[in-house]
């Protein structure tokens, strides 16, 4: 079945440093979504990428979808303590709505 892996599993950064998480799928994806889960909270949708090579920005967050539509990345510039949480990618590969969630990257920001 489809597998979606994320690296790294954990990342500790000093506040102000940049952070990147990578998402890799075993199969070609029709689209990819990113979610953020704050400690003790539930996942919240951030963005969706659909086109090959697509890049989208949300303030300090930059999302990329690979040319082959099998990988994606999330880059945060100048991290802040509010960025703390676990970031999940979720890819769709099929004729219906189900997406497969990645393994997640837990970000800790040290003030």
């Amino acid at each position: 079945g489809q597998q979606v892996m994320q690296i790294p599993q954990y990342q500790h950064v000093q506040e102000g440093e940049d952070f990147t998480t990578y998402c890799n799928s075993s199969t070609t994806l029709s689209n990819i979504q990113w979610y953020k889960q704050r400690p003790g909270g539930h996942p919240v949708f951030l963005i969706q990428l659909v086109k090959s090579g697509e890049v989208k920005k949300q303030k300090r967050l930059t999302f990329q979808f690979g040319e082959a539509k099998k990988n994606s990345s999330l880059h945060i510039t100048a991290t802040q303590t509010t960025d703390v949480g676990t970031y999940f990618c979720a890819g769709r590969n099929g004729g219906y709505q189900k997406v497969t969630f990645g393994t997640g990257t837990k970000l800790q920001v040290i003030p």
Partner: protein
Amino acid sequence: GAGVSQSPSNKVTEKGKDVELRCDPISGHTALYWYRQSLGQGLEFLIYFQGNSAPDKSGLPSDRFSAERTGGSVSTLTIQRTQQEDSAVYLCASSLALIGTGSTYEQYFGPGTRLTVT
């Protein structure tokens, strides 16, 4: 309602007992999902509903787990003869799902039910 709601928020049960978890999706969302999340772990897919039918039950860990959805709205996840390894947070999510458009819609998650099996 304004968002996805789940009940109970916490459930402590003894090993061997049955439990029923409830999810109220956002009105109008035809797609509904159940996930399980163990402490500090990722999201484990359990089951997906499109309307009242479940085209994908592949994630249910054993035949002790079942789920149903009625009226295209409320869903219940039932775990029979609970085991300690069932302890986790059970998350429900809903989304729009316009069949045939090829579009994928964002999932809105509920706050989860924390299940503890003693």
